[in-house]
Every structure is written in C-alpha cells, then in structure tokens.
C-alpha cells in the first residue's frame, strides 16, 4: 500500500469569489496560477502519472484550495460553475498539467454531499481536500463491465460489520489508493439493479488484495481488487441498504458534458499534422483531404460541445442525448489515431516515441485512444441507450 501524507498536510486557504470574476479575468488567474505553481513533474503526458509522480501537484492544488474546483466553497471547494470550470480545464490542459488522482474530488465528494450522512461528510470530505485519502472506484467486475446490474461481489451483514467477498477489476490507479468505494450485492434474492449497496472500504483492511493490470504500453493504470471476507463497519454504507444503484447512476452533472470535450481529438489532430509535416508529406493533397475530413469533424464537435456548455451555463438540464458528444469524440479520436498510424509507416509500431518526441508517437496515440470507447460506458452501450432514450426506438 502506498504511503500517504499525514492529515492536514495541505491546509486550504481562503479564496476569492471566482464566479464573480469575468471569464477573461478568471482565465488569466488560472494561467498565472499554473505558470507560477506547477511543480517539476512531467507535462503533456499521454498516460496517467502514478501517485509518486503526481503527488507534488496534488499537494499544490490542495494547499491552494484548488483541488476540488466544483465543490461548494462551504465544503472547501472553489465553487466553480460549468463555464468557469471549463476555463480551468482548458488552461490546465493548455499548460499540459498532469491529471491528479481525482476520483475523490470528482466522484465521491459530490456523492457524499448528496447521499452521505453528516458524519460521513465530516470525516471523508476534509481527507479528500487534504490528499490524505486517495480514492478508487470499484464498480466493474470481470463479468460485469458495462453491465453493472449483474455484479457478483456480495456484502453480508454480520453483527457490527459488512462482510465483503468478491472481485473488482479495471480499477483505475487502484494501487495508489488508500480507500475504495464499491457496489456490492446485499440482497441476492432480487434481480438486477435492486439489492445493490454502496460501501466505503479501506484498502488496507485485512482480506483486500490488489493486482496491477499492465496495458499494451506496459503501464499499470488499472488493477484488480480482491475482497476475501473483508469486514467494514456498518456505517461504511452510503445511502440506504439496497439503494446503491441510484447512487451509482446519480448524475455527474456537467462532467457528463466534459467527457465529450473535443480536446483529445484536437490534440491528436495537431499531432497528426505535426507528424505529417515532420515527414515532409503534408503537401500531399490526398493526405490533406483526409486531414480536412478529420479537422471538420473536430470543429463541428467543438461547436456541438459549446452548444452543450451554453446550455449548462444557462442552467438547462442535460438530457441523455449528451451521449452524442462522448460517442463521437471517442470514435473521432480513434479515427485520427488510425490515420496517424498509417502515416507513420514502419515507425508506427515503435515502443518508444520516434526521436524521443512524444508528438510523433503514433502507437502511443493509437493505444491511448482505445479505452475511450470502452470505459465510461462503451460506445455500444451508449448507442443502445441513445436508441432507447433519445430515439424512442422499441426494445426487444
């Protein structure tokens, strides 16, 4: 288990009212912030950094009170609305800031604010803010990926404890986390979505085992987590017993829009062009034609993305059609990476970037693009959902 720093290592400071700023002022504020405070760790990494690498940046964000941008100020967040949050993301990405271990700030925090007890909020939220707790998400199982309703991990009440048996997989950076929230079946007599509960588990509890999964690039971004008669106190339950499904599918607010942001595709398109120019073939009209098709897709996606962001800014509810963004973005990202592979020729298959220049690394881009159509709702499941909830097509 990775060591974490002591509680209170990153004391938050009082913050200005960001929402009262103009967009441009806020953008400049963020830009100055990252330029002044980004630590000496990698920028523009195509894979997730491990905790040991990214910890200094988490520390800065925590110390400055910037670690939970969307949390209300009363809870220690920046209190940003979607418009300002988008600016923050844009500026972080422009600078190439590494993505921190953000399951606590992005996922668990908002869920606890909505469904947690006062005691749970009081205990866990500050530990996320300080970086004392790094959370992992335990939803997927070997036989329940996109199909969460058929999960098999069980939790049985035994005296003052829940006893958990089962296995989670595709747990992002689970090796770096000290806590994990899971979905477990607490009533096996009912089917599907019913009978599932939401539980909080320390990773160092006896019976928890973690095994990293190496991806094709040799990185271990994911792991399996095994639970063998793991006992956690009864107050580890969030929400009601057998009501975990509602929590898991609770809306993630504007995160659902941001997951379809055009930046991954836009960055890949820039790399495609960079590679073509480096190879001195960008003047090939056939390549320009294919490049232009991809560029038009990126720009139209940007327009659609901004239309959704405008809706968010206007306080409109985002419907299930927001899936359009994620489906199109992820498939576009892959199409760009496919073109990059073809263009790279024999160097497409290199393990390390050509000339040490990550912008020329076709295989890196191709591999990085693969999980985007699988995780966060596979494209197939999202198209099923669109057919049902957006197009009102019949089910079988």
């Amino acid at each position, binding site marked *: 288990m990775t060591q974490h720093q002591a509680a209170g290592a990153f004391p938050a400071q009082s913050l200005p009212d960001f929402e009262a700023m103009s967009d441009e002022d806020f953008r400049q504020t963020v830009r100055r912030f990252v330029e002044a405070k980004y630590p000496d760790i990698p920028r523009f990494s195509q894979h997730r950094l491990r905790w040991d690498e990214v910890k200094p940046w988490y520390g800065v964000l925590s110390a400055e009170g910037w670690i939970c941008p969307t949390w209300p100020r009363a809870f220690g967040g920046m209190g940003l609305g979607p418009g300002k949050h988008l600016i923050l993301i844009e500026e972080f990405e422009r600078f190439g800031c590494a993505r921190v271990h953000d399951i606590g700030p992005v996922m668990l925090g908002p869920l606890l604010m909505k469904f947690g007890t006062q005691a749970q909020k009081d205990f866990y939220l500050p530990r996320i803010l300080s970086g004392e707790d790094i959370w992992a998400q335990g939803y997927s199982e070997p036989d329940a990926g996109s199909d969460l309703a058929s999960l098999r991990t069980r939790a049985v009440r035994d005296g003052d404890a829940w006893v958990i048996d089962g296995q989670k997989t595709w747990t992002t950076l689970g090796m770096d986390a000290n806590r994990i929230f899971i979905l477990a079946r607490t009533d096996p007599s009912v089917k599907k979505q019913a009978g599932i509960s939401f539980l909080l588990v320390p990773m160092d509890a006896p019976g928890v085992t973690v095994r990293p999964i190496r991806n094709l690039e040799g990185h271990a971004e994911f792991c399996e987590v095994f639970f063998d008669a793991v006992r956690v106190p009864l107050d580890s339950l969030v929400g009601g017993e057998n009501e975990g499904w509602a929590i898991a599918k609770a809306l993630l607010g504007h995160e659902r829009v941001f997951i379809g942001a055009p930046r991954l595709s836009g960055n890949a398109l820039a790399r495609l062009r960079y590679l073509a120019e480096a190879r001195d073939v960008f003047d090939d009209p056939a390549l320009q034609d294919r490049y232009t098709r991809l560029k038009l897709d990126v720009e139209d996606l940007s327009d659609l993305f901004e239309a959704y962001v405008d809706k968010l800014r206007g306080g409109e509810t985002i419907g299930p059609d927001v899936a359009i963004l994620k489906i199109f973005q992820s498939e576009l990202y892959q199409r760009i990476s496919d073109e990059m592979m073809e263009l790279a020729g024999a160097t497409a298959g290199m393990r390390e970037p050509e000339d040490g220049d990550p912008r020329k690394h076709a295989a890196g881009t191709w591999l990085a693009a693969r999980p985007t159509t699988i995780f966060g709702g596979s494209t197939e499941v999202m198209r099923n959902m669109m057919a049902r909830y957006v*197009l009102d097509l019949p089910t079988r």
Partner: protein
Amino acid sequence: MDGWIENARMIVESAAAIVPEDGGLDRVRALRFASPGYSPEVFAEIGTMGWLQLAVPERDGGAGLGMRECASLLVALGRGLLPEPVVSALLAQRLTAGRADTDILDGRTVMVAAWQDRTDSLDFAGPAGGDILKLHVDGAAGAGAFAVLAEQGVAIVRAGEPGVRVETAALQDGTFEGTLTLSAGNPEWLPVADADLALDEAILSHSAYLLGLSERGIEITLDYLRVRKQFDQPIGSFQALQHRASELKIQLELCRAAIFRTAARLDAGLSADRRAAAVSRVKTRAAGLAMLMAREAVQMHGAIGTTEEADIGLVVAKAISQANRYGSARLHRNRHFDASERSAA
C-alpha cells in the same frame, strides 16, 4: 443577446402557413415534374410574408435580420421539402438590395440568382465581355426575372427580354434548373457591395434547408423503424439498425450545432477567410448528412424507400437533387482547407 431566438420563433411559426404543420406532402408531390416545378402563387405568398427581404439590410428596405433567423426559417422550409426556390431568391434580393421593381421586391414576379459559371465551382465573375452563361439556376422555369451576377456587378434581367435565353432541365426532385445565356450587349450593371458574403450566406442558408430536410427524413425513418415488423419484432428493436440510427442522430446534431454557431459568428462578423472556412465546413457537413440520410432512409425502409409513392421517396429524391447545390462536399472540403490555411498564415 438572444433577441434572435424570439425573431426566429415568430418566423418559424409563420412558416406553418406555407409548410403545413401536419407535414403533409401532397402539394409537394403534385408539383413534381410539371414545369415550373413549384407554385408562383405560393412564392408570391412568401413575398407577402416578407421573407424575401429577410436578410436585406434595413437601409435597403429589408428586415435586416441575421443568419440565425434566416437559418431557422430555412430549416422549417427544408422540413417541408419546399419546392419554391427561396435560397436563390434570397440571394437575388440580397445582391440587388432593394433596387428591383416592386413586383420583384414583393414576390409577384419570381426573381432568382444566376451566378454560377461552372459546375461544382463557386466562380461567378464570368467573362468580362461577350455572352454570359450562367449554370444551375434554381427555379429558372418559373422565374420572371434573374439577378445575374458577374464581375461587372449584378444585372436584373427579365425573362423574355431580347438576348435572355433560358433552357431548363428536370432534377430528380421534380424541380427544374436552368441555364441562362445573356447575349444582350449591355445590361445595366449595378454595383454589389460584397458578393462573396452574399454567396456565403446563400451556402449557409441552403445548408439549413438540407438540415431541415434531413431532420424530416430521419424522423420518417425512425417512425418506420418503430412500426414496421419483421420476424415478429419491430425492426427498430434490432440492434444493428439502432446503432446506425444513433449515428444519424449524431450527424444531425453536429450539423445543427455547426450551422447555428456559424450563423452566430457571421452575425458577429468574420474575416472573409474565416467566413469561407466556416461556411464551407457547414456545407460539407450538411451535404454529407443529406446523403447519409438518403442512403440509410432507403436501406432502412427497404424496397418502399426506392419508390416515388412513399413520402420517404420524395425526401430521398430531394436530398440527392439538392445536396451538391452551392458546391459539393468535395469542393467545400478543399475550400475549407485553403481558407483555413490562409487565415492561419
């Protein structure tokens, strides 16, 4: 900032008088292949409603509304498969900017734009001397006047005038386009403020028409998927069709966003290169959407989609007739690339 939304709402509501809310296509069906392929009476009604002067600046007697309002209207007209040549008429009015006679200004006489020098080209300068030949003139068969665009400016010529010759040919949608030859020595050339801008606006407007048409075709197809059964199941329950239908919706919404955000940018003002890049982007998407819709509408309807009896047949015929007008996707991809490289330089 959102005054345009209210304007657009009112215009679209008024459009119901021309393209009925019940969506019936009887009028459209009846006009096919009978010259001029549309109704001059309905065109005059359109004039009465003030639409022809929609995009003409207020100082020239127009409504001075923006491209978002214009696009909103054209989407509604596209949904109704309107056969009257409104985009061409809007362009003609825009180019002549209030300088035509009253019967043309108010739509009693149909005036369309004759601008195109070559097939699949946006060139309009024409020859500086000699005969002027203009291709692919929409609604030429029923037009009483033409706004002829050339290097010299714009000339308003009347059908039947000496030296004005029009040959028409049918399109698959049952409308007729024309080839106009102007051999009269010297028509009166009026100056044109910004013909490129006017043409870009027409391209954007035509894209909006294609968006509306595609939206209609997708709706009809989705309705069919819900009711048509095979193997005792509604075919819309088959996953392969569901996934393809979801792609139609994705392309539809990409096109809509591109059109309305580009319209907003045009209303705010753009450099010529940025405008060309943006408008060509929109037209590429709209033409692609219309052809995708046509392909999938036929395939998902099965054999009935290849007949002229079904409403979807009318939509498909309209799509293949109109997708490439004001430039094919091929033309606009190239134009987008060139314009965006210039504006990035």
